């Protein structure tokens, strides 16, 4: 087992003054909260954009109050133009994938809890940590600039496929400076994520408390660690891709633009570039990104389920090895996003096989969760409900992945709503359920107060039912050939399905509305919630051994010593049916 640190020396002084405490803070907990706040801002922005798109899809001539203020060109008189629909589609995807699904489960919760859970006083490089957040913030500002510049946001989708994304204004509205905003923003985001990953890895490897062996780390810490390893490789590839894209756009190079491209009736002055090169580089990042989004939630859910069941999972080690396998395999499957690109059928087969293989560790994880739940005396609260909801979404969304992994089926389904339903459930909603579960679970630690359980359960049920009402019909629509990314459905065969689209839109409005219950609960409970004790859930990991909220140096100068793994539930301990990791009690069953 790797060596552990007995002297987690603190590397910065106590913060003084408002700016140092709350703005340019070196404290990993403040930085975690900053990431969370940014993700919250991004998720509500992204959600409102999805509302606008859904309304436009089913009521294309509807005047949406206030939309003209956002863009006079994109929504003259409050009616969205087809191009502006694509702009909103791009911004929705970019905000959600990068600024929500990467930030919230990984950067926000990881920053806050990883150092505490391993017994460290802070991250290994607090200044890099602060720089990571503020670079991410700058990336968000640059992206949002696209809304206010005259050009407007880009229309190329969150994947910014070349050659259109590389040729500039001839490609359409938003493709001159809007697309540059996108490229610069994502390049900045890559830099920030690389710094973050470096910090997570070094902290996990070298700042663990005495006795905190790797196998004694909580499962969510493992998930953040594996995710940081994935992110390190993924963003290190996306950054060069963005640099080359920007050079094609502004310096006249031809990395991604082939000869003979005519756009807006103009022959583009480029030659020899490969549009597929962008797809390869992008998806080499893009598929691991799916696991950057979902793995932290898997860890969080595992952590919460153990606590709620009051017993360990069937095998924590298998959970860890499965997450590692997923991380490893995630680098071998990027080509399954490109089955339609005209690749050699043998290449498609080579990508299909590992894609199907990756379902093995994912299935093992699911079976371990379900097998552990069988016969467990589960404590039902908002956190555990969202944890179970996560499993439900992960399974329901994941099953459609079996179909999409096979080239012969994917060729039919790839450009349809089937894919939209698949990735929204398995990557988007499932990951967000993990974030919600984590929020309800750790809120008492972060603030010293409980969130309202009543509002939490209401939030869960509306969101859970709503998510199924939105995304399951997408699969059905995909099967009948409903093409995605289109801003209207003019084919005759689609006419009978417009009512279904209206149902989805109404479900989206209601489900989105329920998120304001969560927002209210979050803000209200922060100030007026019921005070919570230090360890309200009778949990075992180190974060519950310190006051709520934790002091600036986490353990108040004490160097915790770890004696057990965090799965000591259902045992006879001095404090009840559990033994904390830093308790020297001898447990009969051992660890």
């Amino acid at each position, binding site marked *: 087992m790797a060596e552990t640190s007995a002297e987690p020396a603190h590397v910065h002084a106590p913060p003084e003054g408002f700016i140092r405490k709350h703005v340019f803070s070196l404290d990993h907990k403040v930085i975690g909260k900053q990431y969370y706040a940014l993700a919250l801002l991004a998720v509500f922005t992204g959600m409102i954009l999805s509302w606008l798109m859904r309304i436009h899809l089913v009521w294309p001539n509807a005047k949406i109050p206030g939309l003209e203020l956002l863009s006079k060109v994109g929504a003259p008189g409050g009616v969205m133009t087809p191009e502006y629909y694509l702009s909103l589609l791009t911004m929705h995807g970019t905000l959600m994938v990068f600024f929500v699904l990467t930030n919230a489960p990984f950067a926000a919760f990881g920053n806050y809890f990883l150092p505490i859970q391993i017994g460290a006083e802070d991250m290994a490089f607090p200044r890099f940590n602060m720089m990571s957040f503020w670079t991410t913030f700058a990336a968000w500002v640059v992206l949002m600039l696209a809304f206010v510049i005259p050009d407007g946001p880009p229309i190329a989708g969150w994947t910014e496929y070349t050659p259109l994304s590389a040729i500039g204004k001839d490609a359409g509205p938003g493709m001159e400076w809007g697309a540059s905003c996108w490229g610069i923003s994502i390049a900045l985001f890559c830099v920030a994520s690389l710094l973050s*990953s470096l910090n997570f890895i*070094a902290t996990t*490897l*070298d700042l663990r408390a005495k006795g905190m062996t790797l196998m004694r780390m909580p499962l969510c810490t493992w998930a953040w660690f594996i995710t940081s390893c994935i992110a390190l*490789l993924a963003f290190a590839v996306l950054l060069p891709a963005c640099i080359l894209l920007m050079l094609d756009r502004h310096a006249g*190079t*031809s990395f991604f633009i082939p000869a003979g491209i005519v756009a807006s009736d103009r022959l583009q002055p480029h*030659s020899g570039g490969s549009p597929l090169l962008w797809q*390869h580089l992008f998806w080499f990042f893009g598929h691991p990104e799916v696991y950057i989004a979902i793995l932290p939630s898997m860890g969080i859910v595992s952590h919460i389920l153990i606590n709620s069941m009051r017993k360990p999972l069937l095998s924590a080690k298998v959970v860890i090895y499965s997450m590692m396998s997923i991380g490893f395999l995630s680098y071998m499957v990027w080509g399954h996003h490109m089955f339609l690109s005209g690749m050699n059928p043998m290449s498609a087969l080579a990508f299909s096989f590992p894609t199907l293989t990756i379902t093995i560790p994912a299935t093992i994880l699911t079976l371990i969760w379900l097998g552990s739940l069988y016969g467990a005396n589960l404590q039902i609260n908002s956190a555990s409900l969202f944890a179970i909801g996560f499993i439900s979404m992960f399974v329901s969304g994941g099953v459609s992945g079996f179909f999409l992994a096979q080239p012969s089926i994917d060729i039919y389904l790839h450009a349809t709503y089937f894919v939209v339903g698949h990735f929204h459930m398995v990557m988007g909603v499932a990951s967000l359920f993990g974030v919600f579960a984590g929020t309800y679970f750790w809120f008492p630690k972060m603030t010293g107060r409980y969130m309202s359980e009543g509002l939490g359960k209401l939030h869960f049920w509306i969101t859970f039912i709503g998510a199924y009402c939105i995304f399951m019909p997408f699969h059905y629509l995909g099967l009948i050939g409903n093409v995605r990314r289109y801003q209207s459905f003019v084919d005759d065969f689609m006419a009978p399905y417009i009512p279904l689209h209206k149902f989805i839109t109404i479900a989206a409005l209601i489900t989105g509305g329920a998120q304001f219950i969560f927002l209210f609960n979050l803000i209200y409970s922060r100030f007026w919630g019921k005070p919570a004790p230090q360890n309200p859930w009778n949990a075992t990991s180190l974060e519950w051994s310190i006051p709520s909220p934790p002091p600036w140096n986490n353990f108040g100068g004490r160097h915790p010593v770890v004696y057990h793994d965090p799965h000591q539930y259902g045992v006879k301990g001095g404090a009840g049916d559990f033994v904390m990791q830093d308790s020297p009690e001898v447990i009969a069953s051992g660890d």
Partner: protein
Amino acid sequence: MASTTAVTAQAEKLRQAARRGGVAATGADRASRSGIWVAMFAITMSFMAFTSALFVREGSLDWGHLVLPSIVYWNTLALLASSGTFELARRRLELVGGGRVQSGEPGIIWLVATLALGIAFCVGQYSAWQNLRAQGIYLATNPNSSFFYVLTFIHVLHVVGGISAFLYLLSRLALRPGVLRRSFFENTAIYWHFMGVLWLYLLLLCRTRL
């Protein structure tokens, strides 16, 4: 038996501490060592992405041939020599104990030499770009020149990071002679040698593929 092992381990720890100028490696030191390796891994991955792009792009009809300016070979010598001077600096500074050095120590001179060679490398690379420009070969002239400018420029950016570390080291040694964090010194050395190895790889790539 157990106590003998414990005593041996303790003696080894003390020997290590003595070699480190009386300061045992802390968790923060180990983390910074891990950090530099992780950073180098990420940089390698980025250049692998550029290399993949080059391999894909070289299959196109407009791929030609680029004669590298001869100065890049002199630059290579400068960068390799700087690795040697940095090692000389490191050994001499270590001899005086954990980085507790005064200005004028021979180690400082070697450190200044390393800095000068690093700057010479960057100036030399700039000169190589000027040389190409004088021939009418710009960033967007052809895919070969595009890759040459991109690869060399990104590498120089990383070299500038190393030069910044040298400036920090020198300022610490000159302005605040005292205990210098040994891990920072060692990590700078690892990073700087890595820059040399990376450049050799890029030179080989440019020489054989562009």
